[in-house]
């Protein structure tokens, strides 16, 4: 059923009884052209673009739990394309462009809100690093503005300007950046993919691979064996687990990142702000909760929860940046398991095993990449060649030394 004001009114008049499931809860068929493992944002978007752009609709998305239960449903919803390195920028900008037309494309209001993302700087060196980044963005045709302190003050009068340990000097603003309603992305892609014939299979964990010769020809799952011409993995924090089933190791560690939401409040923070002198970023959801986060906990974890010292660290950053939130209360905190790569950048590539395709390494920044990554991954799967926006995101870049290290931290995932 198409969603619109009209259907909403019609629904209301009929006691809202005519609505049908947003997506078909499919049972797995014995075989598909493509199996996508992982019903997160990347997996669902990949399936959608396989069907929409490449006409490959005989696709199943296999999700071990309920779709959207992974990181797509637990992130701080920030989208932006303010990246520094040429290996990364095209993919994130492709993604931002797709966000800009997403709702009309998939007929689902994911509340893409281009409210602006502001990264603050607190030193001359940081200003120059942001200038370098802003200029790189501009060279790629992306909007970027370098603000001085006065301009930041006008946007956000309630930040700590006068008593700060690391005074705010200015910020890098990307006005096209913003937030998107996280869950809606999963549901919207699932619905749109399902409408085009993709099977969304929930409660179906992949437990092993079928092989013929050296080639992967399908998967074993908790709901039986399923064959496929091509198998694509988009399992985020579980990448190493699935890779292990296929017999290879990845340049990935799984780390926990926490996020936080406050009680509902009347609007106070119009856009997205990132502190430059500590680990803290914040925006306010349309429901009124302050949605914020900071650094990863810093140790390998599959527990999907974090610990108190990091909660404190994040709140210290928050209070240092905006002491006006001291009396706002944290309502809930949670964790997600992230696929932290060795250079902090993602991988969209053939896996080292034939028939298997790899989409991983999104670290804590893969939400914004969902449309672009799905688009590029579908391209790779359908055509067996990388999408032009993802040519640098190769697996062999580590061995070759062509790493894409935005932060310059080296092969230490917990520092990215």
């Amino acid at each position: 059923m198409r969603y619109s004001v009209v259907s909403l009114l019609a629904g209301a008049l009929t006691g809202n009884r005519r609505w049908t499931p947003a997506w078909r809860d499919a049972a797995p068929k014995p075989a598909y052209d493509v199996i996508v493992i992982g019903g997160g944002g990347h997996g669902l978007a990949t399936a959608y673009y396989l069907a929409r752009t490449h006409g490959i609709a005989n696709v199943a998305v296999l999700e071990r739990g309920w779709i959207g239960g992974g990181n797509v449903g637990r992130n701080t919803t920030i989208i932006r394309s303010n990246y520094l390195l040429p290996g990364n920028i095209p993919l994130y900008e492709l993604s931002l462009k797709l966000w800009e037309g997403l709702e009309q494309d998939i007929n689902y209001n994911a509340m893409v809100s281009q409210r602006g993302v502001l990264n603050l700087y607190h030193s001359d060196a940081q200003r120059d690093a942001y200038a370098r980044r802003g200029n790189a963005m501009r060279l790629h045709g992306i909007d970027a503005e370098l603000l001085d302190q006065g301009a930041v003050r006008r946007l956000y009068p309630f930040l700590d300007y006068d008593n700060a340990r690391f005074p705010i000097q200015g910020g890098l603003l990307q006005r096209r950046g913003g937030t998107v309603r996280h869950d809606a992305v999963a549901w919207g892609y699932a619905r749109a993919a399902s409408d085009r014939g993709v099977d969304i299979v929930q409660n179906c964990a992949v437990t092993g691979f079928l092989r013929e010769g050296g080639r992967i020809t399908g998967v074993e799952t908790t709901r039986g064996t399923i064959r496929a011409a091509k198998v694509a993995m988009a399992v985020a924090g579980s990448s190493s687990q699935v890779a292990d089933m296929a017999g290879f190791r990845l340049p990935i560690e799984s780390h926990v990142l926490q996020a936080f939401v406050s009680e509902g409040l009347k609007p106070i923070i119009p856009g997205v702000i990132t502190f430059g002198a500590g680990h803290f970023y914040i925006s306010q959801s349309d429901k009124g909760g302050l949605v914020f986060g900071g650094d990863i906990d810093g140790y390998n974890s599959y527990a999907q929860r974090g610990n108190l010292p990091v909660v404190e660290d994040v709140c210290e950053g928050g209070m240092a940046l905006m002491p006006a939130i001291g009396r706002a209360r944290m309502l809930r905190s949670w964790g997600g398991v992230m696929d932290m790569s060795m250079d902090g950048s993602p991988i969209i590539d053939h896996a080292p095993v034939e028939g298997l395709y790899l989409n991983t390494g999104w670290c804590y920044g893969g939400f914004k990449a969902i449309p672009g990554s799905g688009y590029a991954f579908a391209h790779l799967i359908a055509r067996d060649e990388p999408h032009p926006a993802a040519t640098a995101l190769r697996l062999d870049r580590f061995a070759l030394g062509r790493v894409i290290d935005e932060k310059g931290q080296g092969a230490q995932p917990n520092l990215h």
Partner: protein
Amino acid sequence: MTSHRLASGGLIDRATPIGFSFDGRPLTGHAGDTLASALVANGIRLVGRSFKYHRPRGIVSAGPEEPNALVEKGRGPRREPNTRATTIELHPGLDAASQNRWPSLAFDIQAIAQFAAPILGAGFYYKTFMWPAALWERLYEPAIRRAAGLGRLSGAADPDAYEKAHAFCDLLVIGAGPAGLAAALTAGRAGARVILVDQDFRLGGRLLCERVEVDAMPGPVWAGEVEAELKSLSNVRILTRTSAFGLYDGEVGAVERLTDHLPVTPAGEARQRLWTLVPKRILLAAGAIERPIVFGGNDRPGVMLASAMRTYVERYAALPGRQVALFTTTDDGWQTAASFARAGSPLAAIIDARREVPEAVRALAGDVPVFLGARVLDAIGGQSLRAIDIVGDHGRRRLAVDGLAVSGGFNPDLALTTHLGHKPVWSDERAAFIPGDLPANVAVAGAAAGRFTLAAALADGARLGAEAAREAGHTPAETPAFRAGDEPCAVAPLFHVEGGRGKAFVDLQNDVTDSDVALAAREGFVSVEHLKRYTTLGMATDQGRTSSVNGLAILAALTGRTIPETGTTRARPPHVPVAIGALAGLHRGRDFKPTRLTPAHGWAKEQGAIFVESGPWLRAQWFPKAGETDWLQSVTREVEAVRAGVGICDVSTLGKIALSGPDVGTFLDRVYANTFSTLPVGKVRYGLMLREDGFVMDDGTTARLGPDEWVMSTTTANAGKVMQHLAFCHQVLWPELDVQMVSVTEQWAQFAVAGPRSRDLLEALFGPEADVSDAALPYLGCTTLALGPTRARLFRISFSGERAYEIAVPAGYGDALARALMAAGRDLGVTPYGTEALAVMRIEKGHVAGAELNGQTVARDLGLGRMLSKKKDYVGRLMAERAALNEASRPTLVGLKPTVAGVRLRSGAHVLPLGVPPTAEHDQGYVTSTAYSPTLGSWIALALVANGPARHGEEVRIHDPVRSGDVVATIVSPVFVDPEGARLHG
């Protein structure tokens, strides 16, 4: 006496009246009241508006589970939104206001939203507002944002202080009801270290709200006796007004409200304290929360949980209504009838969904009309309840009431046990989720364990308290048998009454109705987690305390599954919302991070230095002189003074590491890319350190002051990182090497003395006995010399390109050294210079620093490729040798000079060829460092440019769109001043 205050009874202090205000209206309550009880006592019903439909709402509970009665507490910067009236301790001057309404609580314009409810069902926004796309940010979203949200932040910095503390114990008891008190007492008497926390300001839990006896004492009296005994035990600590909010690995988070109940925060006191409690064992005795029943109009002010009604009557002597009916499916609900009867206001009716109720339970009610096997279909009223429609064997009937007590069962408050990932299990017998698999050191007692009687709570507490004491190595004298009755506690589950006309709310705060649950199920959101996210059920400030189980029970019924098949949503910390200020504690403003000051900081301050944050340090950036109006003027003067004469600069912040042991040479050869084992005594060498992935980690010098006395210097920024790396290399990679090392950064104050007259200054400083001649101390030499009462280390190294030295003295003499250098150099015109001048001179010399050592560069990029030894293995060698890292096209260090004199260059600008459009494909690198060079009379820059070294002389475009800069510069050698290095020696 206020209108609804009972003439006697309760635990309030009738002798202490307290004036407060609600929505500007002056009211009176008593010490011992909460805001909610004082409002009840004043007959106030309407206290808030709901989130989505702005429906009028009243008080529902008497505890932190309250979904409706949220108020803004206080004014100005102390305004605290969304504060539960049920947990605010009444205090003089308390100023509370309702929220999320306009223009007033009684008349709220947005209440018209409820008439649009059919189109505002669950998730309606996902289905609309898509066309035209541009209107979302401009029109729809702002409207939604304004309508949403609850209370308001003040927008001003929180004026109060917060603090943190840690405490350790054998047993942490969470909750001081009968179960918790029994446990704390038993373990405490045995000598175990006990911490007992309760969120309430008074210990006792339900004992304060029920007419029960323990050991033949009224509940509150018994609780008082236990409290007194616990206070007498030095091994027991009691934290009241303290909520345990999270179980973490090995730790429990709790927040103590220190001064929220005081009219004004005493000077110097913190508002709240964040506790990190580290217990060996945890006993959760948090009690149970009563479950409402979902029926039409169940949100009308006047509909309240039955146990809460009892709390108001028994603890606060406040009557929530004069014509109150009870709708129950539990035995416990009938206790409310008894309370009202005792209070002289017998219930108007009892509607029990069960057909059979034990005689003992019926006896509690006295002479009240009872409807068994009946249900409440609808609650009727506007801003206050007026009547209820009931159905049953007798048919349908309307009863005029002003209050309805509801008891649908009890949900054990188990959330804390699930924070580490453990799940509760459903018990049909108790119609509740009870503890399943628990974390290893956690036990649950009393109502929290689903054991709902007082006797069971006491017995659990005593048993588990004794167990914990034994585990901690103590022997409880005997496990006390506390005497109490076993009150009836049967439940027949009823979650939902269908067929009412009014909206039936499952989640009161988020306005989620039974039809929203049905819609979600219809649309396929049948996982409980989907249901929660699609309808927002359980996502409000009360986190579904009173709504989750009902929601999933309704979903279970709709989908033909059992409750356990349907499952629960995951609870998360914090168990009660916690002020962000409390979680930050002291660390805000200037206390965000500690500040490191160099030993000569005071001296620099006297000199009028402008300081800059340099990581944790404050460093002198420049020293303005009278009449100088611009930093560039000061910095230029400082540079010129150094290049012409002599200057001094505090470099104490450089990392310094002392190394010793027979294998230091070998060790340094492995951690540095160049060779150090050959360094003679009395010499210093510049070293380059790589990460194992081949990129540059840090640079610095290492001096060999004696055969077994080495001292390494690191950059200020990387001091800690390098120390950790060296420890890694030694302890993890090569423990067989006999090397000892320790940071001596704090031990030494260090000053650079630079300029052609620097040796003259040293001669004056050290006096005639000391030999600082070039023969004794050539370039890259080092030595130790007597200086005043101490010994100084002297290194002849140069960052500025001038003849230069660094002098180190024990930090206690750092201030004296600065003064002595100034005195010794007075006749030479010695000039103190800061980090800016330091940077100008290193850029003039083409020395790389932080901007170039950015973790993305390899030695070759920095023109330091020849430092990579080919003769030995070292950290990073193999990875640095990868072909891709040795391509000429990699951006490589060059100098830049603007083609037009006076034009400014800026770091962060990109480098492009001339005559091409500014697009990414033409991006050839970027400017890393810039300075105005007084020596050249021009702005200069260092940059990393593709094929850079091959392009000296080429003109390029310096493109800086974010600062509207676009200039032309010539690629030159990165060494702008004295490329031959003559000045180093001259």
